[in-house]
């Protein structure tokens, strides 16, 4: 490569790279929300959990020097937020969506407040694994510098699919989500199942946040999430509560986010606002194509307050 330029190839490469780089928070939040919603609760507060996770991961990584400790701290923070949501929701006549919105505001507000002194310092970042060693094109190598969290997220999706289908606890979560009465008749506490499901969901969302602050874009600031958590919650509905579809949807959203800047960089300059909106247009299009007035959403857990 004489001038180190790859011309129009930038676009597919950027979409691929973007799918890998940008998708990870979507993936973790949507998988977490998938578990929570399958147990019959909606936790809209994951946007707050994501931002809290990003802030605590950055703080712990900065103070301890170990980014992995930061990831763990983000997960624990997320689980605590999940426990808070589930705890409040177990009180009688509490609406889970309203609690979620409250926790979303609490999480972002608390993260901005506690994260104030963290904007300036630079924390230790998560390492990347170089999967592009076979290529001598620097752009390919850059696109294939992949973070372990992405790989973990990709591995969790089929694992979760399998677990929902064949394991005992997968069945319990689904029972609690499809019919609380049936779970109670079997002698299980629905509230306890939902508490655990919401905590695991929060744990994953917190880890998604740690990816934002510790890998890509890789620093803490207040605009970091810009609504990715809430997009990921919507993505679960769009993925029909199926972990594998969550994976594909997250990748599509990540790639779509890279499309706008990549097209501008090769000289397609008209309508960049439209390309920047492409993830949302994609959602609307798929929602319209797959909806039907004749039935409720396929795969929707029957206990969810939106379907009940």
């Amino acid at each position, binding site marked *: 490569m004489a001038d180190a330029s790859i011309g129009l190839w930038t676009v597919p490469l950027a979409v691929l790279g973007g799918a890998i780089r940008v998708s990870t928070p979507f993936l973790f939040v949507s998988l977490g929300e998938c578990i929570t919603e399958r147990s019959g609760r909606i936790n809209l507060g994951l946007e707050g959990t994501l931002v809290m996770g990003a802030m605590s991961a950055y703080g712990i990584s900065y103070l301890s020097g170990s980014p992995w400790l930061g990831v763990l701290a983000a997960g624990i923070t997320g689980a605590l937020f999940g426990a808070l949501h589930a705890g409040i929701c177990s009180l009688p006549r509490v609406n889970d969506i309203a609690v979620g919105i409250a926790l979303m505001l609490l999480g972002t507000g608390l993260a901005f407040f506690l994260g104030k002194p963290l*904007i300036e310092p630079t924390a230790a970042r998560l390492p990347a694994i170089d999967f592009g060693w076979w290529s001598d094109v620097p752009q390919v190598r*850059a696109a294939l510098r992949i973070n372990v969290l992405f790989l973990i997220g990709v591995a969790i999706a089929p694992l979760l699919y399998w677990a929902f289908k064949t394991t005992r606890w997968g069945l319990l979560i689904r029972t609690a989500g499809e019919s609380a009465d049936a779970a109670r008749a079997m002698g299980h506490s629905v509230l306890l199942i939902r508490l655990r499901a919401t905590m695991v969901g929060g744990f994953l969302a917190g880890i998604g946040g740690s990816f934002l602050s510790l890998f890509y*874009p*890789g*620093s803490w600031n*207040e*605009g970091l999430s810009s609504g990715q958590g809430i997009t990921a919650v919507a993505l679960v509905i769009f993925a029909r509560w199926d972990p594998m579809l969550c994976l594909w949807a997250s990748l599509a959203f990540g790639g779509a986010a890279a499309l706008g*800047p990549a097209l501008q960089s090769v000289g397609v300059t008209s309508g960049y606002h439209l390309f920047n909106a492409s993830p949302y247009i994609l959602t609307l299009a798929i929602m319209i194509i797959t909806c039907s007035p004749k039935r409720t959403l396929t795969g929707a857990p029957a206990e969810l307050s939106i379907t009940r």
Partner: protein
Amino acid sequence: MDFGRISRRHLLQGSAALAVGSALGVRGAAAAETTIGFIYVGSRDDYGYNQAHAQGAAAVKKLPGVKVVEEEKVPETDAVEKTIESMINLDGATLLFPTSFGYYNPHVLKMASKFPKMSFEHCGGLWSDKDPKNAGSYFGYIDEAQFISGIVAGYSTKSGKLGFVAAKPIPQVLRNINAFTLGARLANPKATTQVIFTGDWSMPVKEAEATNSLIDQGIDVLTCHVDGPKTMVENAARRGAFVCGYHVNQSPLAPKAYLTGAEWNWEALYPKFVKMITSGQPIPNFYRGGLKEEIVKVSPYGEVVSAEARKHADDVKAKFMAGDFTIFKGPIADNKGNTVIAAGTDRGQQDPELEKMNYLVEGVIGATA
């Protein structure tokens, strides 16, 4: 709490106590010293636009007999009017610096008419004769510093390709992109600047994607005009590209990759304003200036900047300081081939035409819409 149980007598007593308390508060503060309020649209330590203003506020704090009150993350809505009212009524502020562009019209103008005895100094606004006399607007010709950055970038690039991560195609941003490109082409006539607009002032993921896409195109020196350059600076440095900073000095973030940068110098200007007010002199309603007036400055050069680049940049800087250099000097063509400034026309910094800029000059790859 059951509000029904509060009796009317208690309510009256309570509000009387509040009223007396706030009245005393105002008098106490006004008697002791001059109180100055600073209002920021974002976070005070964002390594960017707001931090630059906060550094100015910090310089004011050091002056004797001055008390500074600050509020950050105030949106460009009615919220800023409430902040101004509370700064005046509760803190006793007599001079206010609402620092974000969108505060000016209508919020600052409305407040200036409501509080005719207070002074308002707004950053970036275009004060005109119709506006209240106690309101003023100031701004810096930061494109002069961008021009110097461009010269350094032009010498430092190996591919001849420069990148610019920009927020929105508004005149101030376009002027920076154009000045940066004209400076680069002074050093390297074949240099081009590829621009990517992210669509808003603070979009970290988009800024990171734009940075990566630009570097994938073979671009090896990047700069930006967004509120927080931290994302661009860190991501570009990680990929081995050089950067020119914006708003404040970002070299602590990437000491090896940082070439130079265009910085605000509010810490020089704000104390000047405060001294004018305390000594009873009026501040000009329309205040503008560049390197010469010490409203903007250039970051110290990074280690990698060559001696040749330093010399050329310092020469041009000296001309700016002497006041005899014009950036937008005809003939200048836009990147579609139209002449935008005819040969023989000099558009000096004060030229209002420049504040309406809607084109990208030859050498910029990108479009304004």
